[in-house]
């Protein structure tokens, strides 16, 4: 079937004919996709369909896996991020990421949040304090931890740890924030806090979220992509996808007949 490239306003990321191989297995198959600036785009699909693989391409975290080879290209602001001249660490500072399982460093909250700025070389105490406060406020965690910034981050609850990881990602002032199933390990209250926060963040950031939870995608995202077996089956405005899916597979998945 013929897939039409969905036009989105003000695209910041262009994924063009992207295929990815783990060794010989093809995990992503010719993905074509544009992502709109300062919007929330969500990726849904059954597990193993390549959602994580795709967003890990956007900050080149897949470079860490030796067997990975890539075809096609990804452009951010019109620049090919896989071009040899690109500094990967610079890219990763522009494209922040939050993982499925909270992964705080075994340090204090303060040191966790400021890890990125310190890598960037910011050392002034007053500006570090400001960055920390701002990031934690944006991640809606400030009120809960402002009196115990110097406690071990591992002693926070799971939901708090995840919001701290979001604050940590925001502290480097990225343009794009990637989230890989950020709520899958959390309870509903923590989940809704993070959802509210993401909607807030949309004002300043481009958010790309992988989720297993279709209600979540429906609630917060502006655009949704549905993946299956490494292929982008359908990509559209979220309300369209959930009320009027074009593809049979999409319909089966969102009505729960599959997946």
């Amino acid at each position, binding site marked *: 079937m013929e897939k039409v490239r969905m036009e989105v306003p003000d695209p910041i990321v262009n994924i063009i004919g992207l295929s990815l191989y783990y060794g010989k297995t093809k995990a992503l198959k010719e993905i074509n996709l544009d992502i709109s600036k300062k919007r929330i785009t969500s990726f849904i699909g059954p597990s193993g369909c390549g959602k994580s693989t795709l967003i890990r391409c956007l*900050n080149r*975290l897949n470079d*860490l896996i030796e067997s990975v080879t890539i075809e096609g290209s990804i452009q951010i602001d019109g620049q090919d991020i896989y071009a040899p001249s690109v500094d990967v*660490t*610079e890219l*990763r*500072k522009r494209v*922040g*990421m939050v*993982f499925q*399982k*909270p*992964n*705080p*460093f*075994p*340090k204090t909250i303060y040191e966790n949040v400021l*890890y*990125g700025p310190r*890598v*960037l070389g910011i050392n002034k105490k007053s500006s570090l304090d400001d960055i920390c406060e701002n990031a934690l406020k944006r991640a809606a965690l400030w009120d809960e931890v402002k009196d115990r910034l110097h406690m*071990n981050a*591992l*002693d*926070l*609850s*799971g939901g708090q*740890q995840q919001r701290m*990881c979001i604050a*940590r*990602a925001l502290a*480097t002032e990225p343009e794009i924030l990637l989230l890989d199933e950020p709520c899958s*390990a959390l309870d509903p209250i923590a989940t809704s806090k993070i959802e509210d926060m993401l909607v807030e963040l949309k004002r300043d950031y481009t958010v790309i979220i992988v989720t297993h939870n279709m209600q979540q995608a429906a609630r917060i995202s502006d655009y949704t992509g549905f993946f299956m077996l490494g292929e982008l089956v359908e990509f559209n405005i979220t309300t369209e996808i959930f009320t009027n899916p074009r593809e049979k597979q999409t319909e089966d998945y969102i009505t729960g007949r599959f997946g």
Partner: protein
Amino acid sequence: MKKLFKTGNPYIWLTAGTLTISLLMICGLIALILINGFGIFWPHKLVRFTLRDGAVVLGEIAKKESIPHKKDAYRTKLKVGNRDVFGMDFRWIDDADIVSHELPHDALAFERREWGNMYGSLKGWKQGDDIKPVSPAEMTAMLKESWGLFKKIRSVEKKEIGNINYRMEKNRLELKRLSTLPPTTGIQKKIATVNARMDVLKKAYREKEDILTGLHQKAREKEVVALLADGSEKTIPVFQIVRLYAPNTMGSFAKIGFYVAKFWEFVSDEPREANTEGGIFPAIFGTVMMVLIMSIAVVPLGVLTAVYLREYASDSSIARLVRISVSNLAGVPSIVFGIFGLGFFIYFLGGGIDKLFFSEALPTPTFGTGGILWASLTLALLTVPVVVVATEEGLSSVPMSIREGAYALGATKFETLWKVVLPQAVPGILTGAILAIARAAGEVAPLMITGVVKLAPSLPLDQHFPFIHLERKFMHLGFHIYDVGFQSPNVEAAIPMVYATTLVLLFTVLVLNLTAIVVRTKLKKWYSTASL
């Protein structure tokens, strides 16, 4: 029968039995060391035997055993002391020969600076040809005085004369160096100033020597007369007596006090009489210092090796070869490391350092001979595999998710490693250090050819600049055990010292390990992932 084996129960019994045997053997060994090691400081009763031939002996009972090939016959090993009079410390007596035995109230044990213990009673204080009776209070006062004198002599010898010697040696080397330079007027002027300094020092030295002679004179002045068991008299300077006690009349508190004082002397004092008496402080100090220097050397070496192997070389065939070689290194006999240390560190490195920096002292070697630094480095080589293996395990236990977290924030590989991965591997690294310490503290063979001595004139740490003297020879508990137990002129009398030293060695290793374990537990708490 077949059924029984099928249940597997016999195998459980077998394994449990083996475990029990191992545990019993270890517990037995530790109990033996504990009992003998702690027991030696307890004041033993003095027994007087009258023998069938009319002889009278006095001493401590050391051992009782049955006479081989004779029924119901026993003999007693009595520590009669007075080595200078009797020629030996111990005497075997057949129990059949003993007519009577008693615990005389006036029996005293004289612990002396030389010739071991003396047992007898106190007859009096010698004044000219007279012997005046002396009260216990007077005796205590005299002992106190002589103790003060002893401390004074020691301080003059060690500190003051030691200081002068040290400065004279410096000046002597300076002179030697200057004499190799072309004799310009400037140099000659310098030689003159050094010579002048030398003269001042020599004068001071002579003064101190005179003081010392005076002190020694004074030490010989007061003498007491002791009555030995065989009826003979023995005159002995008060200064020779370290401790005088009457074990037969001591109450429990007195005994405990005595015990504590003896124990403290043992761990805090220097050895006397070819290491068979006195304390073992220099050996404890040497052991701890050597282990610390070794740790300082082995931890960075092992950690850096492990980081390269695990994080950078990951799985190439060369890395695998290196890994196997490192593991095999742990199996090389330690004496081989000692010989390597002698050849590489002492002759090659030490000799090189001497030529470059201490040429004025040659042919007397400074670093070109065994010393605490070379011994520590040799042991560091010996223990590096342990640290490498433990660190590698520590590194591989740091989850990928944490590393990805750091990478995703734009950290480079080095930043991730240094700030996130390594801190989390610290418990693993400390485990390696603990194992290395345990291995190194008990190792003796390689030390014997890289710098351990039976009696070191000075500690490797003192008040002279630069305070830590890495080139110095040192004493070590393990070697001390070997020396006292097997190389001393009076092995039998030294056996208790062997037990006590073994006990201290075990305890030192325990303390070193516990310190590392406490640190590790603290860190582990900090790094352990809280449950979600």
